[in-house]
């Protein structure tokens, strides 16, 4: 993978489901910052406390874990569309959200929107749009897998109905069929490079060739499924090979995400530019990802030794 040592932001990735190997590889591939949207865990939660602890882990442990690899971790907080369908629980979660959305490093309300496009999903989507507006935070919209085009357009129309400015809304999981509608309305159009189900990166190259780099954002949405935490740098590499300009790549794989989510006031380039080498032995980051006796990493992260040797010390 040749990316000319560019820096990348992956503005949609679910790191709680990923391993330390992924963090090390991401750092090595040039990813300096990530945004982890709150979503569902592959099965529905049944208790309010599960939401509370999940949100806490996004602003606590996961942020800390990322820092060990020299990656700045931000998140968006919200009630996802699938779980909005448990109305009794959703009501309680709505009361919890104000405690979290103003925390440090929370760069938006997300990922929210429609899944089956039920009445309950609609209700909690609208309530969260109002909350985002009140807190002056960007919104990260998950668009549905099924009935996608209509669902995407509906997401935007409802956002406008609730008086959100298009520049404060990132519409995610776009494809060839939705991109025109999103860009024409002035929203940010994010694309998820996720094998088999969402976009492939060859298709992504074609999108940038056709639509340019303005308001287009690439992410991985890597999670507990078969997905790729290096989707952003790999896509950048492919774009380079296929003749897309470094400037355009920089926009879609870094700058646009920073501009969009930076509107929260919680994400600045200086957050990672001031502190580029990791020092796991350093006081601030000293911790127990290093279990007793492990050697701290100073400077460049070593690649995963798993396949290099049969010896485990």
């Amino acid at each position: 993978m040749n990316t000319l040592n560019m820096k990348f932001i992956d503005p949609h990735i679910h790191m709680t489901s990923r391993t330390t190997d992924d963090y090390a590889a991401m750092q090595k591939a040039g990813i300096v910052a990530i945004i982890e949207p709150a979503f569902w865990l592959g099965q529905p939660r049944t208790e309010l406390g599960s939401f509370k602890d999940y949100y806490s882990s996004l602003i606590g442990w996961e942020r800390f874990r990322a820092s060990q690899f020299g990656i700045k971790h931000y998140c968006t907080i919200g009630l996802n569309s699938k779980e909005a369908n448990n109305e009794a629980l959703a009501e309680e979660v709505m009361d919890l959200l104000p405690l979290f959305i103003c925390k440090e490093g929370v760069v938006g309300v997300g990922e929210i929107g429609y899944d089956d496009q039920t009445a309950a999903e609609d209700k909690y989507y609208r309530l969260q749009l109002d909350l985002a507006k009140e807190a002056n935070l960007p919104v990260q919209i998950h668009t549905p897998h099924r009935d996608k085009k209509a669902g995407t357009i509906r997401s935007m129309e409802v956002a406008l109905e609730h008086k959100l400015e298009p520049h404060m809304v990132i519409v995610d999981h776009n494809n060839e069929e939705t991109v025109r509608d999103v860009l024409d309305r002035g929203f940010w159009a994010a694309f998820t490079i996720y094998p088999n189900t969402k976009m492939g990166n060859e298709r992504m190259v074609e999108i940038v060739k056709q639509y340019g780099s303005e308001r287009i954002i690439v992410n991985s949405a890597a999670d507990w499924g078969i997905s790729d935490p290096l989707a952003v740098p790999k896509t950048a590499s492919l774009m380079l090979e296929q003749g897309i300009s470094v400037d355009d790549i920089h926009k879609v794989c870094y700058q646009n995400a920073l501009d969009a989510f930076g509107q929260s006031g919680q994400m600045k380039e200086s957050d990672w530019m001031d502190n580029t080498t990791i020092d796991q032995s350093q006081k601030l980051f000293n911790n127990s990802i290093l279990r007793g006796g492990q050697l701290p990493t100073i400077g460049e992260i070593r690649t995963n030794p798993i396949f290099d040797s049969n010896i485990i010390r």
Partner: protein
Amino acid sequence: MYSNFLPNTIAFLEQLFDRQATPAAAQWLKEKQNLVRSSETGKDLYLPFSAAPRYVGKSMLSLTPDELEQASQLRKGFNPTNWTTDQLARTILLLSLPHDNADNYSKTILKLFGTADMGELVALYAALPLLPHPEKFVAQATEGIRTNMGNVYEAIALNNPYPFENFIEAAWNQLVLKTIFTGKSLHKIYGLDERSNPDLARMLSDYAHERWAAGRTVTPELWRPVGPYINETIISDIKKLFASENETEHEAAALACTQSSYPEAQALLDQHPLLKHKIKEGQLNWSHIGQKAITA
């Protein structure tokens, strides 16, 4: 007692804050403090507590030796060396909350703990020795020692007199062990020598054996709380240290023997007259070993 302590502490922290923060930040904090003072539910605390870094920044405080001295006179063991501006603001807010009703006060504070992010946890744990009704937070602080976030752990365990004053022995021993286990220096644990105990000495010796069995080393600081409890078992560890090729381990062994009244330990020390002399003359003490452990 506490009624004087609280306004004095707030005044001291405000003085530190005003010296380091912008006028706008100081103004913001004043307003929020007033809100918090008249708050009945704690809700007026939650928002400014979270939002503090946005308004006051996160720079490290630079404290004069005089200010550090003032801090420790105000509250024995209070040491804000590693504090940041947002942490200072958050602590001032915590101290401004009405505290006449211990249950209401602790409920509000514990709710903050329950939804805190990394920076908020650091501020909360480091503020514990200053808060009213300290007895209400023992379980939370004991839980805090189980954290895997290094900076959060350090906020409780290092430069903080709260564990020394409030932890039961089992929790104290876990704190000391975990500090070693996570590769941090013991010499910042407040009250380390005063609270050493036979059970801790046994655990530390066992830990050293476990490490040695795996072909690993242990920090020479480990022997500091062990020294006063050298017995017929532990004396063989001390002999092993004296036989080591590492000079710092000899120094640690000699220091441990100095703390012991066990006859064989005294005899061992006599076999190392140079080290004995250095200790007697104050040229060698546990702080030196701690400093070496940090730079190693």
